[in-house]
């Protein structure tokens, strides 16, 4: 008898098929979208990446970091340094940024994993501040006031402004695809099974042979390296970097937590949906100034009260929907009786 372990449902298969034309349409965006729309879509893709990554960290591994801006800023600064100071082509710099993110986050993990709960959260924030203060010391990168990406580096991406906007969008689209792909791959691997078990009951997971520290370490390092890549792309799009913008807890952590919480923490679909909701709110309410932030706060409170598992958690509890084939289903057992 053979057992067939499948994670697909009819809906998730339909979704994966539907994904093909959606991705093709998005790749073709420079031909049908205006320059402003393209920039907005790029920003959405990058925020979605940050949200999916933070959700993996907090929602699956239980590592509630409020200091992921450390890696956004690190990635941004390193990208500027590698291209402007070391003279690398931007395409060569991007993979190096990911690698450097892995390398720098490993000792940070060893340090902050000694802290638990709220102390861990505070620890991550302190690390981010240390990163900010360190980069503010580098006078070659403009010190406290920051620096702009030199025009020849921008020009090396593509000729002409429209072509550059298109490249920036493709990089953002590629990044979000890479991030979602990496997270799906991780969650479907043995480490992913371990992560789900740890999230549910750490004690039982430990006594079943799951190495909690190593599992969390893997997640932290993976998330940090990819967050650094997103940081590089954010500041490639902005063309200017400064310590306050690069290591902003508000922009790169608070909004990201909002997105994950309203979308549904601990689900892959949640942060994706949350990003779309967040940008829909921002684009319709941003003109209202401060009222916009009050509205965001109200939305967060209402969702936490009435759908504590977020919008996606609410939909899933209602209809049992799952777009990404992550839950394991085994078939083949019934055949034995037949």
């Amino acid at each position: 008898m053979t057992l067939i372990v499948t994670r697909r449902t009819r809906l998730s298969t339909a979704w994966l098929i539907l994904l093909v034309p959606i991705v093709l349409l998005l790749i073709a965006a420079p031909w049908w979208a205006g320059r402003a729309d393209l920039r907005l879509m790029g920003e959405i893709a990058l925020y979605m990446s940050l949200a999916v990554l933070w959700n993996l960290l907090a929602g699956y591994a239980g590592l509630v970091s409020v200091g992921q801006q450390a890696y956004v800023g690190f990635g941004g600064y390193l990208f500027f340094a590698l291209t402007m100071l070391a003279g690398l082509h931007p395409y060569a710099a991007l993979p190096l940024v990911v690698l450097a993110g892995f390398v720098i986050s490993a000792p940070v993990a060893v340090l902050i994993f000694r802290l638990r709960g709220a102390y861990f959260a505070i620890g991550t924030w302190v690390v981010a501040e240390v990163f900010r203060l360190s980069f503010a010391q580098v006078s070659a990168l403009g010190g406290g006031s920051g620096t702009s990406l030199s025009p020849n580096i921008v020009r090396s991406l593509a000729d002409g402004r429209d072509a550059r906007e298109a490249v920036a969008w493709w990089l953002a689209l590629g990044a979000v695809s890479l991030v979602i792909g990496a997270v799906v791959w991780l969650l479907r691997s043995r480490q992913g099974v371990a992560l789900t078990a740890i999230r549910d009951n750490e004690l039982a997971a430990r006594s079943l042979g799951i190495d909690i520290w190593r599992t969390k370490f893997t997640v932290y390092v993976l998330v940090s390296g990819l967050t650094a890549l997103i940081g590089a792309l954010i500041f490639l799009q902005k063309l200017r970097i400064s310590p306050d913008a690069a290591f902003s807890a508000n922009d790169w952590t608070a909004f990201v937590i909002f997105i994950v919480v309203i979308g549904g923490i601990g689900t892959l679909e949640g942060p994706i949906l949350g990003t779309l909701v967040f940008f829909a709110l921002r684009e319709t309410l941003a003109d209202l100034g401060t009222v916009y932030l009050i509205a965001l706060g109200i939305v967060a409170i209402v969702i936490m009260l009435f759908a504590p598992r977020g919008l996606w958690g609410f939909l899933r509890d209602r209809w049992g929907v799952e777009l990404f084939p992550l839950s394991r289903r085994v078939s083949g057992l019934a055949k034995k009786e037949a």
Partner: protein
Amino acid sequence: MPDALLSLQALNAHYGDFQALYGVNLKVEPGEVVAVIGANGAGKTTMLRSIAGLLRNAPEAIRWKGQAIGALRADQVAALGIALVPEGRLLFPSLSVEENLIIGGQLGRKGPWSLPRVYELFPILKERRHQQSTSLSGGQQQMVAIGRALMANPELVLMDEISLGLAPVIIRQIYEALPGIVGEGLTAMIVEQDIAKALSVSQRVYCLQEGRVSLEGQSQSVPREEITRAYFGV
């Protein structure tokens, strides 16, 4: 004399200032079923947690095939082939019955236990395999917890109060499955408050009282009065 599969040599255990176990000596030989009985708070769960690596304050006192394992983490202990059916079952609530079982086998140890074998042992779980583990009755959840431990193909399974909070008919059902489990050459240590059930399935019995071993003997031949005395300390 060859080393026992598991031996505790003067095991002490503390929770902060509170001492829960005082110099516990105990041996488990391969293939036997050892029962550990005792009243609430006698230190039974503490003992199992110490063995499983969930409490680590006695590096030298716990020996597995002669090797000290008290300093190992829980996951390292599990990799040696020691599985715990924890008190309160501790299933993974967001996962289905089957996923809980699959996770039990994630160490990939070889042995007789597999999904079909667990379903053979507890047929009801096969019917319920796609249900969320927490939607099952208490008895069925206990079967999942036992099946999950078996999926690891352990050499020694530690069962903590598997009858706790269950109806007598369910307890009987679960205990009827035990011979089928230990028949596979598995060694078991069963911690129970239910004296009769514990004696009926085991070869040897230890009684714990206020953190100390108050009685040790053959399950079938220990006089009941002695057990009562060792259990209640009267």
